[in-house]
């Protein structure tokens, strides 16, 4: 029996019934939760017998230029369904999201990784630190505007001209 993918509407209905006013919007792939009640909503979704999302499969950050996002893939082992929850983080300067480490212990290292790569502060994380890079590394490397390569070169698909998502570099220095 294959895993059932829960629709965004279904997840929104669960979240809304457990914690009213917790859903920001939905789309075909995911249910977008509001930041301020995130931990409360997640904890309720974990224990509710209907959703039963006891297992955090995957947690990662995504950069969309104008905002950051944290993506949660949650799973029920008994009911065998998987759902995608997302949180939008509009503030790129000081991005901050509530940590879910107290709900799923497995989020610990994945939140550290999202902090390391995107600079997202997870409030309430027991020991948030850079995990793959060293403390003091300049910048957040998986953000789309992280472009510093040796010699000022830009990474990119030169052979697919005109499709780059990056802004044109002011000066291209080749050593």
């Amino acid at each position: 029996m294959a895993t059932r993918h829960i629709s965004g509407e279904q997840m929104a209905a669960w979240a809304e019934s457990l914690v009213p006013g917790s859903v920001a919007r939905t789309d075909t792939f995911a249910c977008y939760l509001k930041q301020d009640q995130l931990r409360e909503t997640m904890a309720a979704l974990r224990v509710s017998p209907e959703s039963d999302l006891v297992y955090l499969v995957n947690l990662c950050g995504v950069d969309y230029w104008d905002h950051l996002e944290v993506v949660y893939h949650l799973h029920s082992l008994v009911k065998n369904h998987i759902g995608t929850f997302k949180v939008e983080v509009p503030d790129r300067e000081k991005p901050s999201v509530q940590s879910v480490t107290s709900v799923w212990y497995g989020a610990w290292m994945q939140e550290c990784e999202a902090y390391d790569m995107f600079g997202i502060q997870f409030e309430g994380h027991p020991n948030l630190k850079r995990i793959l890079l060293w403390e003091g590394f300049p910048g957040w490397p998986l953000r789309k505007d992280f472009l510093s390569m040796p010699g000022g070169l830009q990474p990119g698909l030169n052979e697919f001209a005109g499709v780059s998502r990056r802004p044109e570099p002011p000066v291209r220095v080749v050593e």
Partner: protein
Amino acid sequence: MSPVTSEPFVINIGPQHPSTHGVFRIKATVDGERIVDAESVMGYLHRSIEKLAEERTYTQNIPFTDRTDYLSSMANNLGYCLAVEQLAGIGVPARAQAIRVIMSELQRLASHCMAVGAFANDTGAWQTPMMWAFRDREKIMDIFEMCSGARLTCNYMRIGGVAFDPPAGTFEEAVREVIRIFPPLIDDRADVLVENEIFVARTRGIGVLTAEMAINSSLTGPMLRGSGVAWDIRKADPYCGYEQYDFEIPIGYQGDCFDRFIVRLEEMRQSVKIIEQALDGLPGGPYKTEVPLSLRPPAGEAYARVEGARGELGYYVISDEGPAPYRFHIRPPSFINLTALKEMTVGGTVADAIVVLGSVDIIVGEVDR
């Protein structure tokens, strides 16, 4: 006379240490003999694969996946290809499905061979089981070389199928040979280790994780099954036609290092069973669908996972209709399995920590990416 006092101090296990299976460090705080706190320090092998993948086409990214978990490259290739196929809506011919199953099960055999050998090494069975592992794995490496041209970093799966059709005749002969020789080799290992007093003393009751803790820590693979949770992606969310093969999910009941070892041994037996069924029913026909080299999937996202040798290996790919993935995220099983390292090591001795780390079976290339 003043009473004997002790104060905690820090011992670094690694990064240059034969028992850390690569450049990985455990910062263990010990009080007397016992570990009171353990912290894993990683990143020595970080190559920013996720960033690099955003700059390359979907096809060009396949070799990167080899280099994450270099002991099970086929499973990594497969997970990524499944994600892109799901994203672009590409179908895979039946022959390619069966070849994929055979290859990923052979890879699991090879990887578990190494896991079991290295674990025995960590518990004090110095070198002999490790050398057996290398010897047995060689048969599988030969098959990979025959099909893909490479032994470790195979780069064999393609979006929509596999890279080459396996050579007619010799491939089947070689796989039959593996099916024939492996069950007695697994029994050999079991005979030497399972009832060995030293081995049992070093592993029984060490690094115990309850099922609840394992689920809460997002553990997968033999770690989760060793704790008694019968969860296997091949059964729960079958891909590549796994639902048509008959096999069982081995589970442990105590959640200690010994159970994880037993689960791995038993999984090897089940893998042989799957390979035999897949080879018997290997259909003819095309081995891949034609996919444009510069693939541009419709905007959207896909999360696909396979049961790799170390657990759930997931790929999360987001497309913005460009030639390269907008976001490429790997869910590495051994990275997340390390979450529970502290729970397993605290209370034990430093020698136990080595055994626990061996039972997690980390691949640092995958932990650091």
